């Protein structure tokens, strides 16, 4: 198996285990997508060495490592902005997986996307995933007794505070993915466009 594929699989399984341990079921979405995206070329081609371009898989490893480091560090230091930071790092991982999905579609379907569209696909993919986190957040808010309906609020300030809790995953993801899109677009200029349109044989 390609070494990057192996690393992403191990890190994704580790993140999934952490999510299960914390009963954060929405947190399972990202590692499950990671495992699926990495396994898809192997399953479809029947070749365990099939993967994506090394540049692409290399940058996918970074947010997964940062996510785990952040999680472990938070266990000891209890960061004030851990939730926001984990959403931003998760959005980065989702974007890298989105780019891999775009490459997979380039290679295996009629769809043909150049670099800019690969990045745009990744951005929209990561943002769409954040909607799922928002649904998970409102479920948590409803089950813990937060005010949710128009009539529950006596003033605008109270509404702003509770609404901010709901909007946090989408707001952080929106800002973060725009920044990542600029970075990834510049980074992928180094990658041959051919590598964004086929599955790589691996090592």
């Amino acid at each position, binding site marked *: 198996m390609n070494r990057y594929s192996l690393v992403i699989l191990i890190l994704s399984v580790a993140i999934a285990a952490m999510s299960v341990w914390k009963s954060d079921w929405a947190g399972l979405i990202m590692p499950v997508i990671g495992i699926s995206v990495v396994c898809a070329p192997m399953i479809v081609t029947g070749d365990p060495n099939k993967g994506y371009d090394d540049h692409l898989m290399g940058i996918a490893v970074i947010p997964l490592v940062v996510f785990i480091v952040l999680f472990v560090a938070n266990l000891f230091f209890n960061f004030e902005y851990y939730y926001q930071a984990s959403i931003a790092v998760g959005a980065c991982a989702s974007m890298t997986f989105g780019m891999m999905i775009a490459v997979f579609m*380039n290679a295996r379907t009629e769809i043909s996307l*150049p670099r800019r569209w690969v990045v745009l696909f990744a951005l*929209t993919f990561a943002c769409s995933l954040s909607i799922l986190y928002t649904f998970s957040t409102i479920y948590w808010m409803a089950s813990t007794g937060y005010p949710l309906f128009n009539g529950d609020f006596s003033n605008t300030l109270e509404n702003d505070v509770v609404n901010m*809790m709901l909007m946090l995953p989408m707001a952080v*993801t929106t800002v973060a993915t725009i920044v990542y899109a600029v970075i990834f677009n510049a980074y992928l200029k180094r990658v041959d466009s051919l590598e964004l349109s086929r599955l790589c044989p691996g090592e």
Partner: protein
Amino acid sequence: MKKIYLSDLVCIFAAAILLYMTYLSVVGTDRTAYKLWTGVLCALFCLVPMLFRHAGIMKLPLALILIIEISIFIHAYGVLLLLYDDILWYDTITHLASSITIALLVFYALIAVELFDHQTHFGPRGIPLFILLIMMTFSIFWEVLELIVDQTTGTNMQYSPWDTIRDIVCNDVGTIIVTLSVRFYLKGHTCEGFIESLELHPSLKGFVSRRSKKEEQPVLVDH
């Protein structure tokens, strides 16, 4: 004598009514600045399809212009006559109508890219997928924009978390309606006829198909 287009009349009529309603609303009630800006901007947006035609940028079909005008009109009507505050489901209707309109515009944009950018090919399955993803992203951007406006100016565009979730669901329902319609439509039709009828300006075609020198080579797909 210069030909008068029905679509131009629709645009002018909608803009004129909105300006008149803005005048009545500003004179008769409070929240004048918000209403004034909403009314005037919506009236200007009603004229955009007409301006596009006269500037030679593109010629939108009458059906699409009607949908655009209705979407803008019901939003402005709701703000100017306080229907957003008084009728619980009014917000649902406007979000649904707007998402259908914008999803159709995204569809038009995507098939323009499909035809003029020779590096990009979505195909009949890719276009609905991209409409869905782009629209979900727009939906998020809109809600985040509302949040920013609420936090910075003290307005109350997001009434409650439930209201926000309902907006997102309405946007997604509108998007899914268009996505499924496009999917079924593209099974039996091609995009060329659509785009030819738009009569896009050459510079707009150039913008859609722009590519850097490095990317001049077409992408080879290894199936």
